[in-house]
């Protein structure tokens, strides 16, 4: 009992020498040339880089939507490359929440039906999953939009439905590929305030953006260029997200992430 050892931060994502090649007819092009990246629990990593540098390709690999061509990807210590398609589907369903630039909601389904979709494939009964989906939508400030279809909602609202969908299954990591790319800066800031508060509550987040302003909401910036990591440093002057009123003014509906997480989320050291 002479010393108290600081607990080793738990590694959630570990990429070792990851390469990705796409087959184009007879020739193949290599998009990622060997990426080494480690993300620990509770981090907020922002991936930046010019268009075509391989950010989305990297995110798809992290999100288990795609497989590495070479190298190793360990998700929570497990080697993903050895998993069967069915196991990968289960990983996507349980461990990963994915948010896309263009929301990717199913147009015929209402907000709550979209949000509950991961639970549908988990085999959870209609009543239970509806309750969870409504709970998430309420945290996103969408209680009044529960039965609206995507076409009846603004871009910011749609993206919040997408975030609710990503969170409904209690994933270990939240992946966001340019989540504010289709939104104006005010609504974008509102989405960022949601992500920051989720991270404050303990969620591990990896986000892609090419907007330097947006990137400053993260804790660590990783730079990608032509399929190689060219930079990895912590954010020095982190931006604080706009408060609730600003968000309310921007969209009319009021995100209540803070309140929601304070009630239901786990306590996280500041």
């Amino acid at each position: 009992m002479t010393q108290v050892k600081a607990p080793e931060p738990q590694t959630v994502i570990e990429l070792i020498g990851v390469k990705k090649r796409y087959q184009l007819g007879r020739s193949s092009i290599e998009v990622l040339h060997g990426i080494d990246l480690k993300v620990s629990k509770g981090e907020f990593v922002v991936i930046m880089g010019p268009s075509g540098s391989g950010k989305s390709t990297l995110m798809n690999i992290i999100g288990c939507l795609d497989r590495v061509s070479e190298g190793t990807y360990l998700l929570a210590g497990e080697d993903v490359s050895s998993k069967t398609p069915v196991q990968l589907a289960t990983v996507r369903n349980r461990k990963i929440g994915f948010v896309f630039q263009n929301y990717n909601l199913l147009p015929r389904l209402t907000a709550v039906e979209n949000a509950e979709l991961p639970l549908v494939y988990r085999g959870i009964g209609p009543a239970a999953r509806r309750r969870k989906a409504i709970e998430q939508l309420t945290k996103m400030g969408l209680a009044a939009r529960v039965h609206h279809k995507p076409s009846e909602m603004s871009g910011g609202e749609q993206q919040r439905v997408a975030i609710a969908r990503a969170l409904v299954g209690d994933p270990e990591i939240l992946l966001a590929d340019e989540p504010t790319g289709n939104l104006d800066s005010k609504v974008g800031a509102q989405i960022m305030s949601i992500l920051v508060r989720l991270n404050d509550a303990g969620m591990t987040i990896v986000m892609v953006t090419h907007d330097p302003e947006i990137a400053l909401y993260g804790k660590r910036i990783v730079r990608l260029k032509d399929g190689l990591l060219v930079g990895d440093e912590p954010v020095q002057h982190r931006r604080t997200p706009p408060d609730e009123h600003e968000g309310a003014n921007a969209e009319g509906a009021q995100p209540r992430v803070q309140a929601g997480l304070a009630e239901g989320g786990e306590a996280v050291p500041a």
Partner: protein
Amino acid sequence: MNMREYVAVAWRALIGNKMRAFLTMLGVIIGVGCVIGLVSVGEGTRAQVSAQIQGLGSDLVMIMPAPGRGIRLKIEDAEDLKQRAPELSRVMPTSSFSMQVKYGTQTKDTTVQAVTQDFPDLRNFYPERGKFFTAEDVAARRKVCLIGKTVADELFGNTNPVGKDIVIMGQSFTVLGVMESKGTALGTNPDDTVLVPITTGMQLTRSRYIQSITAQIKPGYDAKATTDHITAIFEQKFRRSDQVRVFSQEELLNTVNQVTRTMSIMLGAIAGISLLVGGIGIMNIMLVSVTERTREIGIRKAIGARERDIMTQFLIESVILSAGGGLLGILLGMGLSQILARVAGWPSVVTVGSVLMAVGFSVAVGVFFGIYPASKAARQDPIAALRYE
């Protein structure tokens, strides 16, 4: 996800495009409608014809001269046959003519059948009023007759015909009785007839010959062996083969059953082909639908749907299309067979078998033609699907 939810998801996708779903089902609706409608007509015809033949008595044998051989039969041939064929219980010489009969000022064109006292037992056809003529009446060539229900109604109306005289070819016949009604079937009316003794009938037409012989096989004797024996008897008599045609009611029944069964199968096959075409229509639309919903498939896969989930979802859609088409088709087919029965007078029987067959086939069509599009959907790469615009 359980079956009910899969069905609910598939149902919503179809409801989202009602017109397309209906048009896709139309092929199956028409195919199944034809199966039910046509098979029911075939089945109805078979049932009616065989009932009719059985009503005549399935133990009957008909003997008539083969056409174009110049052979003619006489009453003596019938008597001779009775002596030589112990397996026959009754042997009746028969002729029939189309003639006009008169009562007072009323006339009626009908079929006059010249028969013997054995007619009622042979044909299972008895007088309702009065009595049939006797062997004595036949031997004495008495001018007596029995009339069918239709003739009685048209000539006599409400008057009791028994004991009245009707005129056939200028000669007066006493009505001994009225035959019971057998009802019309297959365009023939057994009630539209006048029965006279064979001897009287031959005298009336100044003929020495009869047209055919009807005989009854004793119980326990084989129909085929008996007809063979009769054939042999006539071969010996005329010293040549193929001079007469001998066929039993049982063989006729078998033939009719076979013919109508073949007809049913052929109608069913034609209908089956249209069902197949309907299935191809379903496959076509499902392939279009898979392409249109590439993005949806990508999204579902990205959030954890397994290939099996996607496969089931699309497969159930195609089965709903085909089974829904099948059910609507059954209604259409029942309606069709009702209409055919009413308007065209075709007998029709919708059998449980044909309904089950139609349902089974349409579900099978849905599965068969749904598998390819569904597996195409299931195998889609989620990233490519998400990129798809």
